[in-house]
């Protein structure tokens, strides 16, 4: 059972390595979109420093949403989903493996890229570890929630925009607490409450999202 899930994880990571350019596009979007903000609101370090953490978190959320339509759609169109259903591993476990692979190719990259972006918007030195820390805790939850929208829309022919509309309201608590934690850490305040909430969101998403996603995939195939 576990072997089949590890096989899917290894398969997805191998594909991600061969499509590394596609994952870099997500980071490219993250960086370029941030570079537009000084043009829009002015390059004043005061303004950028005040909104920087929030902008980086919102862009990370949007970047995670970008790749969602490819989470299950190719399997549904290419016949891979039938094979997943015939695996000895429960579909929920395979969904978890798929989400982990997706997060390693997006959320983890975004977390690693965030210190560079923090420098671009004149955030204080504390942001260099506070942003990656909160993104490491928040982006897996975003991926897991996003997998539900991706599965619901798989087979419907609707694109990423509708997936984003479905998923964005569910992402709002993660954004609020992720940003609160990042700003508290940057200001040198106690962020343990917000971080604990984020941990709770992650645990809840780990427990519930694979169930909902697998149910939606079974519906899409049936």
């Amino acid at each position, binding site marked *: 059972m576990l072997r*089949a899930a590890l*096989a899917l994880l290894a*398969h997805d990571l*191998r*594909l991600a390595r061969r499509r590394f350019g596609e994952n870099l596009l997500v980071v490219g979007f993250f960086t370029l979109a941030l570079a537009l903000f000084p043009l829009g609101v002015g390059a004043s370090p005061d303004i950028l420093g005040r909104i920087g953490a929030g902008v980086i978190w919102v862009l990370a959320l949007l970047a995670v949403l970008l790749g969602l339509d490819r989470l299950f759609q190719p399997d549904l*169109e*290419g016949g891979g989903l039938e094979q997943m259903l*015939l695996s000895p591993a429960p579909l929920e476990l395979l969904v978890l493996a798929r989400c982990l692979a997706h997060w390693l190719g997006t959320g983890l990259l975004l977390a690693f890229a965030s210190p560079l972006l923090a420098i671009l918007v004149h955030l204080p030195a504390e942001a260099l570890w506070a942003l990656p820390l909160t993104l490491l805790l928040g982006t897996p939850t975003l991926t897991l929630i996003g997998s539900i929208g991706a599965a619901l829309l798989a087979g419907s022919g609707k694109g990423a925009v509708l997936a984003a509309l479905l998923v964005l309201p569910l992402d709002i608590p993660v954004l609020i607490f992720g940003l609160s934690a990042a700003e508290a850490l940057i200001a040198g305040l106690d962020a343990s409450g917000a971080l604990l909430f984020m941990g709770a969101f992650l645990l809840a998403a780990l427990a519930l999202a694979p169930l909902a996603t697998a149910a939606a995939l079974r519906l899409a195939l*049936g």
Partner: protein
Amino acid sequence: MLAVEGLACRRGGRLVFEAVSFTLEAGDALVLSGANGSGKTSLLRLLAGFARPAEGSVTWLGREITLEPAEHAQRVHFLGFADGVEGQLSVRENLAYQAALLGGGADTVDTALAAFDLAEFAPRPARELSAGQRRRVALARLLAVPRPLWLLDEPGVALDRANRARLEAAIERQREEGGLVVVATHGDVRVRDPLVLELGEPNPC
């Protein structure tokens, strides 16, 4: 072994077929025929457990498959119209992944590739293969992981004569070993002494 009783299928409110009944014992083969849209693929999907019938039942050794979906999933090989082959992976990587996903080992991969004359293509990226060669990679999956029930939807599509003969030999071996084969085909794959189920004209309402 596999018994279907009074099966009906609806898609989008349309009755695709109804009152379909048959029983297959070890070594049997069933050929599904009928016009496009008559429900051959839908019937295969019901037998695989991917969808629930509108009416009727599918049982394996007397147990309804809907009551034991996980056990039934491990009995079935389903070869649909899409071949499930990833173009960016090599042929061997594709088959090794599919075998591992289905609970098989890596030791049967090369034998399965050789059975469909794919050994020389093993290191090549699947995107370089023709449609027929990709189909053979999908067919090799049947041999890489032994399972008792093969559900094949137009398995001969894009195959040349020599590879259709390999497929027919694989079906024959599966039956000799006590497995069951259900094939939806328009006649391009020959099966020895099959039961034949002719599905009716598609119902437009």
